[in-house]
C-alpha cells in the first residue's frame, strides 16, 4: 500500500502542480510544496531516496514551470529540515517521537523560506496570502492523515 501510494505521489503530484500552475488564480499555483510533504512519507523509511526525490521532483517542476532560478524549493526544504532538526535536538520540551509536529514544522518553515527566497530573487510569491495559507494548511493536514494511516501500529509490549 505504501509503495503504491508513493509511486502515485511521485508521478502524479508534479503534473497536478503543473496543471494548477497554468491557472490565473495565483493561490492555486502555490501548492508546489504538496510534493515535499508527500515525499516526507518516503523520507521516514528511505531518507536517501526521499532526499533525491525532493531534489529531482522540485527541480522538474521548477524547470517545467519556467522558473528563472531552479533549486530554490529544494534549498528551502533542506534549510527548513535543518532548523527543525536543531530545534528538536536542543529543546527539552519538543517530543522527538512526534512525527506530526516535525512534519508540520518542516512544511511551515519550507513555505516561509520559499517565500523569502522568491521575494529576495525578485520574483512574486503568494505564499502568505490567506487563500494560500488555508490551501497549504489543508494539504498538510491531509498529508499527515495519510501518514497516520500508513504508519504501522506500535507494539505496546515491545521493549
Amino acid at each position, binding site marked *: 500500500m505504501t509503495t503504491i501510494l508513493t509511486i502515485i505521489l511521485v508521478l502524479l503530484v508534479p*503534473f497536478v502542480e*503543473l*496543471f*494548477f*500552475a*497554468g*491557472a*490565473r*488564480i*495565483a493561490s492555486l*499555483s*502555490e501548492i508546489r510544496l504538496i510534493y515535499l510533504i508527500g515525499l*516526507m512519507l518516503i*523520507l*521516514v*523509511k528511505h*531518507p*536517501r531516496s526521499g*532526499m533525491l526525490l*525532493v*531534489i529531482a521532483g522540485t*527541480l*522538474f517542476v521548477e*524547470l*517545467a*514551470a*519556467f*522558473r*528563472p*532560478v*531552479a*533549486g*530554490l524549493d*529544494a*534549498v528551502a*526544504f*533542506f*534549510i527548513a*529540515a*535543518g532548523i*527543525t*532538526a536543531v530545534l*528538536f*535536538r536542543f529543546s527539552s520540551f519538543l517530543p*522527538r*517521537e512526534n*512525527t506530526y509536529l*516535525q*512534519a508540520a514544522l*518542516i512544511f511551515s518553515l519550507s513555505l516561509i523560506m520559499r517565500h523569502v527566497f*522568491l521575494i529576495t530573487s525578485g*520574483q*512574486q*510569491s*503568494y505564499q502568505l496570502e490567506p487563500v494560500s495559507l488555508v490551501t497549504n494548511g489543508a494539504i498538510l493536514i491531509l498529508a499527515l492523515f495519510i501518514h497516520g494511516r500508513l504508519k504501522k501500529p506500535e507494539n505496546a509490549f515491545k521493549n
Partner: protein
Amino acid sequence: MRGQSFLLTPVQIASGVVISFLLILFSFAGTFDGFRVLIGAVLAGVQSDSTAFFGGFADELDFLSSLSSLRDERDQLIEENLALESENATLKTQLDDLRSVTKELQFDLPFELIPVRVRFYDQARMGEVIINKGSDSNIAVSDVVIVDNFAVGEVISVEPRSARVRLLTSPESAVPVKVIGTETKGLLRGEFGTGLILTEVLNERTLEKGEQLITTGINTSFPFGLNAGTAGDVISLESELTKRARVISPVEFNNLQRLFVLKQ
C-alpha cells in the same frame, strides 16, 4: 531516529543544501536549458490546456459573482445609450477628420505576423507569459507582440520552442507613447501586473480623458503607430513637473490566448 522520525541527520541536511545550491549555480550557468526545452516540449499540450481551462473557469466565476450587479449595470447602460446616440450624430460629422488622423496608425514598415498561443502565465513574474513558439519559428528577443493592432508586449527571452513575453502591464515595462493628433508624449508603464498608467507627461501638454494613445516608435522596439489604449482619469499636481493618467485598453491582459508576433 531513522525509520521513526522526519528528522534528517546533519550530514544529510548539509549534503542536501550543498546539492541544492549547486543546482542554483548550474541554473544560472544555463546547464538546465536543454532539460527546460525538453520538458517544455513534452508538456506543451498540458500547459496550453490548463491555461485555456482556467481561462474559461475564471470567466464562469466572474459571471456568477457579477449577477447581482447586472441589473444596476443595465440601468446605467440605458442612460449611457441615450447619451451615446446623440454623441453618435456628432461623431459622424467628425468622421472625415478622423480618417486623416488614422493615417498615423499605418505602420511605417511592412510587417510579417506570426500567430502564437499563450501557453503559460508566470505567476512568479508578474506581467509575463510564455508563448508556444520560439527561435525555431524565427521569433527573437525584442520582437513585438500584438493583438488586433494593439500593442501587447515584447519578447524578452527565447528558447527553441517557447518564448517569454513581457506584457505592457508588467511593472518593468516602459513604452514611449503619444496622443494622436497632438505632441503630448509620455511613458506607458505597467501597474501591479494588471493595469496601465501613462507617466512622464509634461504638465504644459494637454491630456484629456478619452484621447487615444499610440506608440511613438522612438527608442523602443515597438514600431510607430500601434494602439496602446485611451487615456482615463488624469492625475495632475501643480507642484510636479509631470502628470499621469490611467490608461484604458480593450485588451484583456489577464486572459490572453491568441496573439501575433511582429517580424520587421
